[in-house]
């Protein structure tokens, strides 16, 4: 699924990564625990999380995750956006709960990593 479709399905807001609207993710992982995110070893995974801090961006950077959706109306700070831009990570803010966010994307064909 392309970034632009994720934004449409979630009625979400793109914070950075305007040049990557056609970037495609096949699988997603949802967690607020970065320790769990760091144990997954798939490529091109979408991270759906309610944890919005600098470590979310760092964790994505180390895990080769190129796209993050912040669910339940969590907001990214300007520092987070700056760090994401440096690492070419797409950031999306969404007001739906983590459950609804996952449900909508799953329904639309995004696969779980396990």
């Amino acid at each position: 699924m392309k970034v632009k479709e994720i934004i449409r399905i979630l009625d979400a807001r793109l914070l950075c990564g305007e040049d990557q609207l056609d970037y495609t993710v096949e699988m997603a992982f949802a967690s607020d625990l970065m320790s769990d995110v760091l144990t997954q070893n798939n490529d091109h995974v979408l991270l759906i999380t309610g944890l919005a801090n600098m470590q979310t961006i760092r964790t994505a950077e180390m895990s080769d995750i190129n796209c993050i959706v912040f669910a339940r109306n969590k907001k990214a700070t300007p520092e987070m956006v700056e760090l994401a831009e440096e690492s070419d990570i797409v950031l999306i803010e969404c007001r739906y709960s983590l459950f609804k966010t996952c449900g909508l994307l799953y329904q639309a064909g995004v696969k779980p990593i396990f």
Partner: protein
Amino acid sequence: MSETITEEYSVTGGDFSRAGYASSQIKKILKRMDVDKAIIKRTVVAAYEGEVNIVAHAWSGKIEFQMDEEQIRIILDDEGPGIEDIEKAMQEGYSTATSAIREMGFGAGMGLPNMKKNADHMHIESEPGKGTKVEIRMERMVRE
């Protein structure tokens, strides 16, 4: 082509806003040196887990990075409370993390086990009350 690269980064205990800076710099070097992608990911995940451990538990520390044609070595050396029982600390789920660490998305007792999983070799030495030294080594030969 017998180039050896060495770098050293200092890490401040408790400074979560900067946690990951050293690992990020290491990732940039590995990418620039055209290291295999899967090896880069295992290396930087292990380095980052170790860096977060220093920020979360220690007072201060340094991360040494060394790379030659055959190996990547990262030594995470901190001054801090040390680890009382290394065997216990290596068990998944065992944690001494504070709520501040958990709020950052860590502290589930998975850092050291995940470092071991990603590294080709890992060695820990610790003296309670003084500090901890973790060495991870990666072979640059691609795993079949």
